[in-house]
């Protein structure tokens, strides 16, 4: 059966290693496959690998046994060669996946269906880094001169940008970026019989304008949409033949604060950085009424957060996540303590097309911070303009959302807590830098003793929480709207894998 699927954005490229981004991976998952996937509940499931385990006697090596009899869409066989090729490809300069693979030093094809991955130290969580790492056919890549990963930032285009050859359940039939992508079931798929595979054709249309997207669902022009605007959930749910399904998402929304600089540009305080004072940061966090945001802005579709890790993640604790309370008076007192009784003004950079009601949350925050005297200038812009501000250290107060595909705190620390540097900390726009913490973070990669590792994680979190490095807002709740013919539950990754879908 045909499934017409719409969401706000489109995949950025078909090259499976060129971008590390949700919509891009979601599409790729239908066509390509990694060794391991997460099923619709988020649990590991064997894909191109049938089983995997650390090598006995060598904690630095993981052994993957590959599925046999898998063929690519062009008929070629899937072998260990391809795994070696794909992982190495994903580790190259232009790949956007390389940060997930920093620990890998070598990939060895032991035989046609066994692969060993050598890491620079014991890496207990390596499998979770591979769930979005897609396997490409080496022969096909070489024949089509697309061995190199597409350099997206460099404006490059390769054969793989517009052509695919995966092992996945669906084949690409046609694609116009931002317009329409058509996929058809792969009859030679290895999983026939194992998965429902009831969707035989997928027509994927990005619809940016939220009202239009909802209208398309309401008028029956599409069967399945992601990103239902929260205000329209009721309407969709109350429409005959339509259902809304929700689930907590693996994504937390928070504000980052430039606490590292001696002075900041976008404020009205001369010669000092008010954000450098932890009391100010605490005050700001206290001023934010997360319940009101949940209630009004999110229409109940969020889970107020006290830390910047989603509950799925190893290291998350209920106490930390429930640690925030709104207290304007206390916040004012803290401000006064810090010497900012009269407040100050600052600019808030906010995306307007990335997270659920991102701009509205920022706007509500403006009002809440105004109550403790902080005048916030809101600058909302498309994500493509927003994110570079963070990675280029050009913002002092920004909104960011973070999902943790590895389900482990290390992922968060690597990107958001570690001092900004070559290997790690690329999304840490706070200027926070603590050598001890950095050392602890680095130790996580090779710590095999899970208890020790978890203790380290906890102490890093303690530090992060104590510093109020980030101001958490909430965990997003995912909404999928669909016709009641579609049988599927929401996945926390927001990545529908259509082979799991049933249609009745």
């Amino acid at each position: 059966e045909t499934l017409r699927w719409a969401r706000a954005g489109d995949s950025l490229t078909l090259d499976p290693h060129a971008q590390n981004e949700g919509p891009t991976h979601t599409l790729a998952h239908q066509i390509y496959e990694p060794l391991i996937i997460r099923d619709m509940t988020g649990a590991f499931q064997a894909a191109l690998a049938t089983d995997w385990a650390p090598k006995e006697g060598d904690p630095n090596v993981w052994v993957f046994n590959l599925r046999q009899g898998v063929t690519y869409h062009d008929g070629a066989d899937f072998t260990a060669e391809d795994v070696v090729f794909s992982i190495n490809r994903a580790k190259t300069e232009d790949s956007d996946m390389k940060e997930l693979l920093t620990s890998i030093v070598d990939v060895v094809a032991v035989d046609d269906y066994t692969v060993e991955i050598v890491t620079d130290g014991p890496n207990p969580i390596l499998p979770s880094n591979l769930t979005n790492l897609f396997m490409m056919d080496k022969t096909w890549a070489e024949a089509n001169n697309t061995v190199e990963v597409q350099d997206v930032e460099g404006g490059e285009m390769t054969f793989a940008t517009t052509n695919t050859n995966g092992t996945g359940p669906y084949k690409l039939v046609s694609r116009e970026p931002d317009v329409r992508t058509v996929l058809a079931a792969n009859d030679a798929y290895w999983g026939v019989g194992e998965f429902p595979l009831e969707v035989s054709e997928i027509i994927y249309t990005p619809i940016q304008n939220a009202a239009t997207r909802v209208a398309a669902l309401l008028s029956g022009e599409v069967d399945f949409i992601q990103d239902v605007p929260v205000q329209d959930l009721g309407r969709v749910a109350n429409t005959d033949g339509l259902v809304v399904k929700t689930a907590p998402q693996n994504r937390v929304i928070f504000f980052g604060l430039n606490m590292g600089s001696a002075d900041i540009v976008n404020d009205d305080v001369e010669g000092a950085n008010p954000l450098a004072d932890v009391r100010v940061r605490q005050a700001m966090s206290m001023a934010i009424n997360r319940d009101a945001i949940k209630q009004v802005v999110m229409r109940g579709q969020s889970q107020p957060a006290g830390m910047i890790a989603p509950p799925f993640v190893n290291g998350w604790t209920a106490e930390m996540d429930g640690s925030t309370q709104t207290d304007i008076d206390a916040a004012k007192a803290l401000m006064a303590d810090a010497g900012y009784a009269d407040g100050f003004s600052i600019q808030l950079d906010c995306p307007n097309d990335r997270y659920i009601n991102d701009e509205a949350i920022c706007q509500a925050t403006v009002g809440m911070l105004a109550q403790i005297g902080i005048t916030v200038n809101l600058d909302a812009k498309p994500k493509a303009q927003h994110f570079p501000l963070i990675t280029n250290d050009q913002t002092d107060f920004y909104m960011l959302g973070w999902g943790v595909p590895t389900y482990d705190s290390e992922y968060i620390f690597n990107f958001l807590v570690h001092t900004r540097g070559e290997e790690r900390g690329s999304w840490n726009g706070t200027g926070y830098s603590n050598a001890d913490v950095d050392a602890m973070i680095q130790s996580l990669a090779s710590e095999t003793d899970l208890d020790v590792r978890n203790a380290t994680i906890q102490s890093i979190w303690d530090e992060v929480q104590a510093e109020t490095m980030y101001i958490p807002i909430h965990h997003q709740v995912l909404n999928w709207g669909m016709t009641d013919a579609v049988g599927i539950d929401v996945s926390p990754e927001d990545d529908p894998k259509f082979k799991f879908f049933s249609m009745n």
Partner: protein
Amino acid sequence: MSDISTKPPSRMRSIWDSDLAYSFRRSPVALVSALVVLVLVLCAVFAAFLAPHDPFNPATLNLMNGFTPPNTNNAFTGDYFVLGTDDQGRDVLSTILYGMRISLFVGFAAVLLAMILGVFLGLLAGYAGGWTDTVIMRVADVQLTFPAILVAMLIFGIAKGITPPEYRDQMAIWVLVLAIGLSDWVQFARVVRGATLVEKNKEYVQAAKLIGRSPLAIMIKHILPNVLNPVLVIATISLALAIIAEATLSFLGVGAPPTKPSLGTLIRIGQEFMFSGEWWILFFPAATLLALALSINLLGDWLRDALNPRLR
């Protein structure tokens, strides 16, 4: 010498008696639309006194007031709002009043800018002729190549790039003015040029030349007052267009900031709640915009016919 034997009628009197005033008094459409415009403009100007709340002061907002329907008390806070509140808990009525102020300001300022620029260039092109004319009119052609919203988006993009972030909020309004104004001058220039070409061959201009008046004096003192009628008509219609253009730009995300929304921004926000039943967030701003733009357009329409004796 205190002169004048037969005193001509007083100024007020002669304005009242003029054909324009007469046709105005006789046209119900003109009267009603003028009244609407007047009321709305006054509301906007005195928004600070009329509005029950100050939606531009974030400190006074209570998010919990969000989505209060019109003429009800909020379920949590118990506050009352005549026209309800929007998603941020802002009083819709107050936000409309303040937003209209921004829309009108942008409209008026943009039209003024376009008018000054267009009238000046049009006069120059028409009067000087030759190369000056060719150059100005070619520039106008180029300008026309860039439709208004494109120009606006370009200017907006560039201005955003070059203004320091702390001024962006205030800049946004001026950038809108600049963007809309710059994309609108051409029609003024064209009309003024056309009229100037006609006027400059009239004998009163010859007479002024003969006296030895400078071209600038002739352009400004003699020709300008005689080409103002069509300018007035265009200005009126442009005003409505500018207000709409501002709304459109808001939709495209390059308008007034959401913390200081204009009518257009309000509509953009409101349309997100169209399916969800919070109709008032869209309806009231849209109705206000419609009333405003429609009245201005109707006035412009009437003015066009009233000032064109050949159409009566």
